[in-house]
């Protein structure tokens, strides 16, 4: 038996199994289906909230370009901008992330950041190119979908407003109603009105500024008498004025900012009182302050030119109008600042606070300059640079912008490099 088996080759039929080889290929359409379903669910769950905000001015908002920011976080975009039926207001539809739902209440406010580029807010200069951003501030209240937006940051709200009159000698025309009144850097009130009036008989020009001070912001200790805020404020100011409190006209940032009211205690201010005038009590003023004071002290030629130059530069930057002389102005500014340095010893103490605030400004100036530069460079190289010929308004404007960046940087560098000499001047005096 064993021999026969060895001699005859064994033949068996191969086992047949259904091939499963092409099975794996179905993973491809299944994966595709999975992706599609996942994307569908994702887009359904991320469906944004439509919110309407009515503005006074579109100020360069555009659909799908303008962002909505909440605490520095991008939470949505503008989906459409259209004129309201009344023909006056602008209705913007915002497409906000779904997680903003609970923050949309009647107390929530929207404002346009960068709608009014200004040198007091160097970061806003970027919006000359990039357009404005809508900023959302959450507040309390019932759920809402329709809002009224403002052109700038909503003014600070004050609990109590006690009006006072201030008469400055300097130019107050550029002062914004609603701009803050500060005391040692703290906001204690706001400007209520600025008016210009001329007495035809005497030929006297007066520019009364009405400021509203908030007594609660003073956190007055050892409060005596009633809680009648007007009386309390008057009483406090009486004492403070006797100790040298004066109102001063300041520019923030120095040189190019818009005028603001600053309360300051000046030790050698001399005698003065809170005078009860016809309408409101009047807070006495001190001349100048900051650079203005310098101008007065140094008097004649060089410093006055600085002011002129700077004003010229500012005007140019603001208008973005064309003028290749900008660089000359900067050079001139540099030279005059150098001259200023030599005469600074006398004015040392008054400059110190100015320098401090300049320092703060320098960084933001430099950042702005960097932003503008990057912007212009990105734009220029976006499609591979080409030689530019000076025609076309916007092209010129951008050239101007680059120049502006350079000017701002020069200014920033200068101020940054030379504070030691200012400080030395202070030590010397």
């Amino acid at each position, binding site marked *: 038996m064993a021999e026969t088996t060895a001699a005859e080759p064994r033949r068996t039929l191969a086992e047949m199994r259904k091939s499963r080889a092409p099975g794996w290929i179905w993973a491809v359409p299944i994966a595709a289906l999975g992706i599609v379903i996942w994307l569908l669910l994702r887009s359904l769950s991320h469906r944004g909230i439509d919110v309407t905000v009515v503005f006074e001015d579109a100020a360069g908002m555009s659909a799908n370009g303008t962002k909505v920011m909440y605490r520095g976080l991008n939470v949505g975009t503008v989906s459409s901008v259209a004129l309201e039926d009344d023909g006056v207001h602008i209705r913007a539809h915002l497409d906000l992330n779904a997680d903003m739902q609970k923050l949309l209440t009647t107390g929530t406010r929207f404002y346009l950041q960068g709608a009014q580029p200004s040198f007091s807010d160097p970061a806003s200069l970027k919006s000359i190119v990039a357009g404005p951003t809508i900023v959302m501030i959450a507040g309390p209240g019932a759920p809402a979908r329709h809002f009224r937006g403002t052109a700038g940051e909503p003014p600070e709200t004050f609990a109590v407003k006690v009006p006072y009159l201030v008469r400055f000698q300097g130019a107050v025309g550029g002062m914004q109603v609603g701009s803050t009144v500060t005391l040692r850097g703290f906001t204690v009130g706001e400007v209520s009105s600025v008016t210009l009036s001329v007495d035809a008989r005497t030929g006297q020009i007066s520019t009364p500024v009405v400021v509203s001070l908030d007594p609660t912001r003073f956190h007055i200790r050892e409060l005596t008498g009633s809680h009648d805020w007007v009386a309390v404020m008057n009483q406090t100011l009486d004492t403070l004025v006797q100790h040298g409190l004066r109102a001063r006209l300041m520019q923030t940032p120095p040189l190019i900012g818009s005028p603001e009211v600053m309360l300051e205690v000046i030790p050698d201010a001399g005698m003065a009182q809170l005078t009860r005038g016809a309408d409101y009590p009047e807070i006495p003023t001190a001349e100048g302050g900051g650079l203005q004071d310098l101008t007065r002290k140094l008097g004649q030629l060089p410093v006055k030119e600085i002011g002129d130059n700077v004003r010229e530069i500012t005007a140019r930057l603001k208008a973005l109008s064309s003028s290749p002389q900008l660089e000359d102005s900067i050079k001139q500014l540099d030279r005059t600042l150098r001259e200023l340095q030599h005469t600074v010893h006398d004015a040392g103490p008054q400059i110190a606070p100015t320098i401090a605030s300049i320092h703060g400004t320098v960084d933001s100036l430099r950042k702005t300059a960097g932003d503008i530069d990057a912007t212009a460079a990105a734009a220029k190289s976006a*499609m591979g640079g080409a030689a530019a010929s000076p025609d076309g308004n916007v092209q010129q404007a951008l050239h101007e912008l680059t120049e502006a960046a350079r000017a701002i940087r020069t200014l920033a560098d200068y101020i940054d490099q030379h504070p030691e000499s200012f400080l030395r001047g202070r030590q010397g005096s």
Partner: protein
Amino acid sequence: MQDLPSLQGGGAAVCPTCDHWLERTSGRSITAALACALATVLLLFPANLLPLMSVSALGMSRQSYISSGVLALWNAQWVIVALMVTVFAITLPFVRFTMLAVVLASVRLNRRPSWLGRAFRWTIHLDVWSMPDVFLIGCAVGYSRVSANLSVTIDWGGRCLIAAALLSMLSRATLDRRTVWRAIAPEQPLPSGQSSTHVISCTTCDLVVPAEAQDEGCPRCGARVSVRRRYATSITLALIIAGFALYLPANIYPMSSDTQLGQLVPHRIVDGIMELYRAGLWPLGILIFCTSIAIPLLKLGGLGWFLLSVRRRSQHRLVLKTRLYRLIDEVGRWSNVDVFTISVFVPLLQFGALASARADTGATAFILVVVLTMIASRLFDPRLMWDAALGPHG
């Protein structure tokens, strides 16, 4: 006429006349092609509905959808370019891959409705005209051009497009047309007594029909069968003359213009290549040179040569010419890369006076060159060269 031995496993049958493959079975499978076609159709939906990529600069961000490029072209009055891009990049990919999936699914499920042959014929005709893969390369070039200076992120639409385009190429690679045709309707043996000179082969599905069926519909795919397509040479000639005429404006006029810092900068095809080269993207520069300058010129020159060959009854380099014809017919669609590039980056570069891009005169002329030469090479029948060389009815 060629008899094919039945192929076992991987391999290819090759025509002894022109050295071109007739049947290839390696790496081909109806199931794989069906799976790829289905996945392509599925992925085309998000690719069309979601943003391909987005760019953000200066605190602004811009997104590019397939449709936004078309819309930008349409709004800028480039109607022809807008329509062509819509058809090649949106409509036909959907139509073609849906039809392919349906046909392959029917074959696999052993259902043979009467329209199956006609539907498969259309998927074959539309193969070269549906261009998700070409559009993907266009996106890649557009992405590179923009990302050289700005930060671009690829969004989900873009990812789905990449997958869809790759799968569409895979479905092309795995599809064995002859097997599908045999599955739709098996080939009949030649009726006895008829010699091979008395039959015609359908140019679409290669079904052999008696010569009496001249000008009638092919029983398998419905295409009109004829010994040779009529007026093929004159139509091809007319189209390549038009192509030559348009080739000049396509290269002289700018394809796109950019407003850079308020100044209008035109970009001809050559400028685009130089830009890519300067940006260090010379491989893409070479690619654009090939697709936008070399291929159209090759097509026009090649087809001109073939027509001349037919007319002069030339017997020289027939195999080379036939191979060149197949090359021209195959690569012609890739010339659309440059136009697709424009439609991808135009919606991205919309930063007002700082930097904004738009299509220009050259684009219309260029896409017309591409389309006309594609039609010309589709209509031309390379066998005419052999006919002419080998005398009347070889």
